[in-house]
Protein backbone atom coordinates (compact mmCIF):
# COMPACT_ATOMS: atom_id res chain seq x y z
CA UNK A 1 0.00 0.00 0.00
CA UNK A 2 1.36 3.45 -0.86
CA UNK A 3 1.97 6.07 1.84
CA UNK A 4 -0.90 8.30 0.74
CA UNK A 5 -3.34 5.40 0.99
CA UNK A 6 -2.00 4.46 4.40
CA UNK A 7 -2.48 8.02 5.62
CA UNK A 8 -6.09 8.07 4.46
CA UNK A 9 -6.81 4.73 6.11
CA UNK A 10 -5.23 5.76 9.40
CA UNK A 11 -6.65 9.28 9.63
CA UNK A 12 -8.91 8.50 12.53
CA UNK A 13 -6.45 7.76 15.32
CA UNK A 14 -2.87 7.15 16.33
CA UNK A 15 -1.77 3.56 16.03
CA UNK A 16 1.27 1.44 16.59
CA UNK A 17 1.17 -1.93 14.90
CA UNK A 18 3.59 -4.79 14.80
CA UNK A 19 3.31 -7.96 12.82
CA UNK A 20 5.85 -10.65 12.03
CA UNK A 21 7.33 -8.62 9.20
CA UNK A 22 6.10 -5.05 9.68
CA UNK A 23 6.49 -2.29 12.24
CA UNK A 24 4.13 0.58 11.65
CA UNK A 25 3.28 3.79 13.47
CA UNK A 26 0.84 6.58 12.72
CA UNK A 27 0.81 9.46 15.20
CA UNK A 28 2.77 12.46 16.44
CA UNK A 29 6.52 12.06 16.02
CA UNK A 30 9.17 14.19 17.69
CA UNK A 31 12.60 13.44 19.11
CA UNK A 32 11.33 11.76 22.23
CA UNK A 33 9.10 9.34 20.39
CA UNK A 34 11.66 8.65 17.67
CA UNK A 35 14.22 7.51 20.26
CA UNK A 36 11.77 4.94 21.65
CA UNK A 37 10.58 3.83 18.24
CA UNK A 38 14.11 3.32 16.97
CA UNK A 39 14.86 1.09 19.93
CA UNK A 40 11.83 -0.99 18.94
CA UNK A 41 13.00 -0.97 15.35
CA UNK A 42 16.46 -2.21 16.33
CA UNK A 43 14.99 -5.21 18.14
CA UNK A 44 12.54 -5.82 15.31
CA UNK A 45 15.27 -5.91 12.66
CA UNK A 46 17.78 -8.00 14.59
CA UNK A 47 15.72 -11.14 14.31
CA UNK A 48 15.60 -11.05 10.52
CA UNK A 49 19.16 -10.58 9.46
CA UNK A 50 21.23 -13.23 11.12
CA UNK A 51 23.88 -14.24 8.62
CA UNK A 52 23.83 -11.01 6.65
CA UNK A 53 26.97 -8.94 6.44
CA UNK A 54 27.67 -6.33 9.13
CA UNK A 55 27.62 -3.70 6.42
CA UNK A 56 24.16 -4.72 5.21
CA UNK A 57 22.61 -4.99 8.69
CA UNK A 58 23.99 -1.67 9.78
CA UNK A 59 23.03 -0.09 6.48
CA UNK A 60 19.39 -1.09 6.88
CA UNK A 61 19.21 0.11 10.46
CA UNK A 62 21.13 3.27 9.59
CA UNK A 63 18.63 4.07 6.85
CA UNK A 64 15.74 3.50 9.22
CA UNK A 65 17.32 5.81 11.80
CA UNK A 66 17.97 8.59 9.31
CA UNK A 67 14.47 8.50 7.84
CA UNK A 68 12.74 8.53 11.23
CA UNK A 69 15.02 11.21 12.67
CA UNK A 70 14.75 13.33 9.52
CA UNK A 71 11.00 13.38 10.01
CA UNK A 72 11.29 14.08 13.75
CA UNK A 73 13.75 16.90 13.13
CA UNK A 74 11.36 18.56 10.71
CA UNK A 75 8.45 18.32 13.14
CA UNK A 76 10.54 19.60 16.07
CA UNK A 77 11.75 22.57 14.04
CA UNK A 78 8.39 23.45 12.53
CA UNK A 79 5.56 22.81 14.96
CA UNK A 80 5.59 24.41 18.39
CA UNK A 81 2.09 23.43 19.57
CA UNK A 82 2.14 19.67 19.20
CA UNK A 83 3.23 17.56 16.27
CA UNK A 84 0.87 16.55 13.49
CA UNK A 85 0.23 12.90 12.68
CA UNK A 86 3.08 11.31 10.74
CA UNK A 87 3.68 7.83 9.41
CA UNK A 88 6.62 5.47 9.71
CA UNK A 89 6.65 1.90 8.43
CA UNK A 90 9.36 -0.69 8.02
CA UNK A 91 8.48 -3.92 6.28
CA UNK A 92 10.66 -6.96 5.60
CA UNK A 93 9.68 -8.64 2.33
CA UNK A 94 11.21 -11.39 0.27
CA UNK A 95 14.78 -10.13 -0.18
CA UNK A 96 13.78 -6.49 0.19
CA UNK A 97 13.19 -4.10 3.07
CA UNK A 98 10.83 -1.19 2.47
CA UNK A 99 10.90 1.88 4.70
CA UNK A 100 8.17 4.49 4.33
CA UNK A 101 7.78 7.83 6.02
CA UNK A 102 5.12 10.46 5.51
CA UNK A 103 4.86 13.83 7.19
CA UNK A 104 3.00 17.04 6.68
CA UNK A 105 4.92 20.03 5.37
CA UNK A 106 4.33 23.72 5.78
CA UNK A 107 3.45 25.18 2.40
CA UNK A 108 6.38 27.60 2.63
CA UNK A 109 8.83 24.68 2.85
CA UNK A 110 7.54 22.69 -0.11
CA UNK A 111 9.64 24.27 -2.87
CA UNK A 112 12.88 24.05 -0.91
CA UNK A 113 12.33 20.45 0.12
CA UNK A 114 11.32 19.41 -3.37
CA UNK A 115 14.45 21.05 -4.75
CA UNK A 116 16.65 19.41 -2.14
CA UNK A 117 15.36 15.92 -2.91
CA UNK A 118 15.46 16.44 -6.66
CA UNK A 119 19.09 17.53 -6.43
CA UNK A 120 19.91 14.60 -4.19
CA UNK A 121 18.45 12.05 -6.59
CA UNK A 122 20.28 13.61 -9.53
CA UNK A 123 23.76 13.16 -8.02
CA UNK A 124 26.04 10.62 -9.65
CA UNK A 125 28.43 8.37 -7.71
CA UNK A 126 31.39 10.70 -7.33
CA UNK A 127 29.22 13.77 -6.75
CA UNK A 128 27.39 11.93 -4.01
CA UNK A 129 30.59 10.89 -2.24
CA UNK A 130 31.90 14.44 -2.39
CA UNK A 131 28.63 15.90 -1.10
CA UNK A 132 28.47 13.29 1.65
CA UNK A 133 32.01 13.98 2.85
CA UNK A 134 31.43 17.73 2.75
CA UNK A 135 28.26 17.31 4.80
CA UNK A 136 30.09 15.39 7.53
CA UNK A 137 32.50 18.24 7.99
CA UNK A 138 30.50 21.34 7.20
CA UNK A 139 27.24 21.03 5.36
CA UNK A 140 23.65 19.98 5.75
CA UNK A 141 21.59 16.99 4.74
CA UNK A 142 24.16 14.39 5.78
CA UNK A 143 21.36 11.96 6.58
CA UNK A 144 19.94 12.24 3.09
CA UNK A 145 23.33 11.60 1.50
CA UNK A 146 23.70 8.55 3.72
CA UNK A 147 20.35 7.25 2.42
CA UNK A 148 21.29 7.82 -1.19
CA UNK A 149 24.66 6.09 -0.71
CA UNK A 150 23.05 2.94 0.63
CA UNK A 151 24.11 0.08 -1.64
CA UNK A 152 21.49 -1.90 -3.58
CA UNK A 153 18.77 0.54 -2.66
CA UNK A 154 16.33 2.89 -4.33
CA UNK A 155 15.16 6.12 -2.74
CA UNK A 156 12.09 7.89 -4.07
CA UNK A 157 9.97 10.80 -2.91
CA UNK A 158 6.79 12.59 -3.76
CA UNK A 159 5.06 15.66 -2.37
CA UNK A 160 1.28 15.55 -2.60
CA UNK A 161 -1.37 18.14 -1.83
CA UNK A 162 -4.58 16.63 -0.50
CA UNK A 163 -8.12 17.90 -0.86
CA UNK A 164 -7.91 20.13 2.21
CA UNK A 165 -4.72 21.87 1.09
CA UNK A 166 -2.25 19.90 3.22
CA UNK A 167 1.13 19.05 1.72
CA UNK A 168 2.60 15.65 2.47
CA UNK A 169 6.16 14.44 1.90
CA UNK A 170 6.22 10.72 1.19
CA UNK A 171 9.60 9.01 1.22
CA UNK A 172 10.24 5.41 0.26
CA UNK A 173 13.49 3.51 0.52
CA UNK A 174 13.77 -0.03 -0.81
CA UNK A 175 16.86 -1.99 0.20
CA UNK A 176 17.76 -5.35 -1.28
CA UNK A 177 19.36 -8.02 0.85
CA UNK A 178 20.50 -11.59 0.36
CA UNK A 179 19.04 -14.25 2.63
CA UNK A 180 16.91 -14.11 5.76
CA UNK A 181 16.03 -16.36 8.63
CA UNK A 182 12.69 -15.65 10.29
Amino acid at each position, binding site marked *: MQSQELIEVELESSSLKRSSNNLFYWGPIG*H*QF*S*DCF*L*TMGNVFLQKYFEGE*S*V*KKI*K*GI*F*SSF*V*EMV*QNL*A*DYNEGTYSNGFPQSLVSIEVLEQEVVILTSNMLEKKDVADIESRFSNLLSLNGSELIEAH*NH*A*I*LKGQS*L*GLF*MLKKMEESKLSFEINENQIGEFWLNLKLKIKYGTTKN
Partner: protein
Amino acid sequence: MEPLKIEPFLQTPEIDFDSNTGDFKLTGKSYPADAIEFYEPVIKWVDEYVKSPATRTQLVCEIEYLNSASQKQIVELLMAFKPLQEQDKDFIIHWKYEEGDDDILSVGELIEHELELPFSYEEF
Protein backbone atom coordinates in the same frame (compact mmCIF):
# COMPACT_ATOMS: atom_id res chain seq x y z
CA MET B 1 40.00 18.24 36.87
CA GLU B 2 37.44 15.54 37.59
CA PRO B 3 37.28 12.62 35.15
CA LEU B 4 34.24 12.49 32.90
CA LYS B 5 32.20 9.31 32.99
CA ILE B 6 28.86 8.80 31.25
CA GLU B 7 27.21 5.40 31.23
CA PRO B 8 25.87 4.10 27.92
CA PHE B 9 22.16 4.28 27.34
CA LEU B 10 19.84 3.16 24.54
CA GLN B 11 21.19 5.42 21.82
CA THR B 12 24.22 7.03 23.45
CA PRO B 13 27.74 5.70 23.96
CA GLU B 14 29.85 5.27 27.06
CA ILE B 15 32.23 8.12 27.77
CA ASP B 16 35.16 7.39 30.06
CA PHE B 17 37.67 10.24 30.05
CA ASP B 18 40.39 10.14 32.73
CA SER B 19 42.10 13.51 32.95
CA ASN B 20 44.81 12.15 35.28
CA THR B 21 46.06 9.27 33.12
CA GLY B 22 45.12 10.72 29.73
CA ASP B 23 43.24 7.52 28.85
CA PHE B 24 40.02 8.37 27.06
CA LYS B 25 37.41 5.93 25.75
CA LEU B 26 34.30 6.51 23.66
CA THR B 27 32.51 3.20 23.20
CA GLY B 28 29.25 1.88 21.80
CA LYS B 29 26.37 3.11 19.70
CA SER B 30 25.64 6.77 19.06
CA TYR B 31 22.33 7.67 17.45
CA PRO B 32 20.43 10.09 19.69
CA ALA B 33 17.95 12.35 17.97
CA ASP B 34 19.51 15.37 19.68
CA ALA B 35 23.22 14.65 19.43
CA ILE B 36 24.16 18.22 20.32
CA GLU B 37 22.51 17.84 23.72
CA PHE B 38 24.62 14.75 24.44
CA TYR B 39 27.96 15.88 23.06
CA GLU B 40 28.01 19.55 24.00
CA PRO B 41 29.02 18.98 27.66
CA VAL B 42 31.60 16.41 26.56
CA ILE B 43 33.15 18.90 24.16
CA LYS B 44 33.18 21.59 26.84
CA TRP B 45 34.94 19.18 29.19
CA VAL B 46 37.63 18.53 26.58
CA ASP B 47 38.01 22.28 25.99
CA GLU B 48 38.97 22.58 29.66
CA TYR B 49 41.15 19.46 29.64
CA VAL B 50 43.42 20.67 26.84
CA LYS B 51 44.35 23.72 28.91
CA SER B 52 46.16 21.44 31.36
CA PRO B 53 46.41 17.96 29.83
CA ALA B 54 48.10 14.80 31.05
CA THR B 55 51.60 14.02 29.74
CA ARG B 56 50.11 11.64 27.21
CA THR B 57 46.57 11.49 25.83
CA GLN B 58 45.12 8.58 23.92
CA LEU B 59 41.52 8.51 22.80
CA VAL B 60 40.09 5.09 21.95
CA CYS B 61 36.98 5.34 19.79
CA GLU B 62 35.23 1.99 19.51
CA ILE B 63 31.99 2.96 17.84
CA GLU B 64 29.46 0.43 16.61
CA TYR B 65 27.10 2.87 15.01
CA LEU B 66 26.92 6.62 14.26
CA ASN B 67 23.88 8.49 12.98
CA SER B 68 24.38 11.59 10.88
CA ALA B 69 23.89 13.95 13.83
CA SER B 70 26.51 12.08 15.86
CA GLN B 71 29.01 12.12 13.01
CA LYS B 72 28.97 15.89 13.04
CA GLN B 73 29.39 15.98 16.80
CA ILE B 74 32.28 13.50 16.67
CA VAL B 75 34.02 15.88 14.27
CA GLU B 76 33.51 18.72 16.75
CA LEU B 77 34.70 16.54 19.62
CA LEU B 78 37.89 15.49 17.87
CA MET B 79 38.53 19.09 16.84
CA ALA B 80 38.47 19.97 20.53
CA PHE B 81 41.62 17.84 20.98
CA LYS B 82 43.46 19.75 18.25
CA PRO B 83 45.23 22.11 20.72
CA LEU B 84 47.15 19.08 22.05
CA GLN B 85 48.68 18.61 18.64
CA GLU B 86 49.40 22.29 18.25
CA GLN B 87 51.13 22.26 21.63
CA ASP B 88 53.20 19.28 20.51
CA LYS B 89 51.74 17.04 23.20
CA ASP B 90 51.78 13.24 22.99
CA PHE B 91 48.35 12.52 21.50
CA ILE B 92 46.77 9.81 19.35
CA ILE B 93 43.29 8.58 18.39
CA HIS B 94 42.81 4.81 18.19
CA TRP B 95 39.87 4.30 15.81
CA LYS B 96 38.36 0.85 16.20
CA TYR B 97 35.68 -0.49 13.89
CA GLU B 98 33.75 -3.71 13.54
CA GLU B 99 35.00 -6.15 10.90
CA GLY B 100 33.37 -5.29 7.59
CA ASP B 101 32.13 -1.88 8.73
CA ASP B 102 33.52 0.28 5.94
CA ASP B 103 31.31 3.20 6.90
CA ILE B 104 32.79 3.71 10.37
CA LEU B 105 36.28 3.18 8.94
CA SER B 106 35.71 5.79 6.25
CA VAL B 107 34.43 8.35 8.78
CA GLY B 108 37.68 7.95 10.70
CA GLU B 109 39.77 8.25 7.56
CA LEU B 110 37.91 11.37 6.49
CA ILE B 111 38.41 13.04 9.86
CA GLU B 112 42.07 12.05 9.92
CA HIS B 113 42.63 13.52 6.49
CA GLU B 114 40.59 16.72 6.85
CA LEU B 115 41.48 17.61 10.45
CA GLU B 116 45.05 16.32 10.22
CA LEU B 117 44.85 14.46 13.50
CA PRO B 118 46.97 11.40 14.40
CA PHE B 119 45.00 8.16 13.95
CA SER B 120 45.65 4.47 14.23
CA TYR B 121 43.13 1.88 13.05
CA GLU B 122 42.10 -1.48 14.40
CA GLU B 123 39.45 -3.90 13.21
CA PHE B 124 37.67 -5.93 15.88
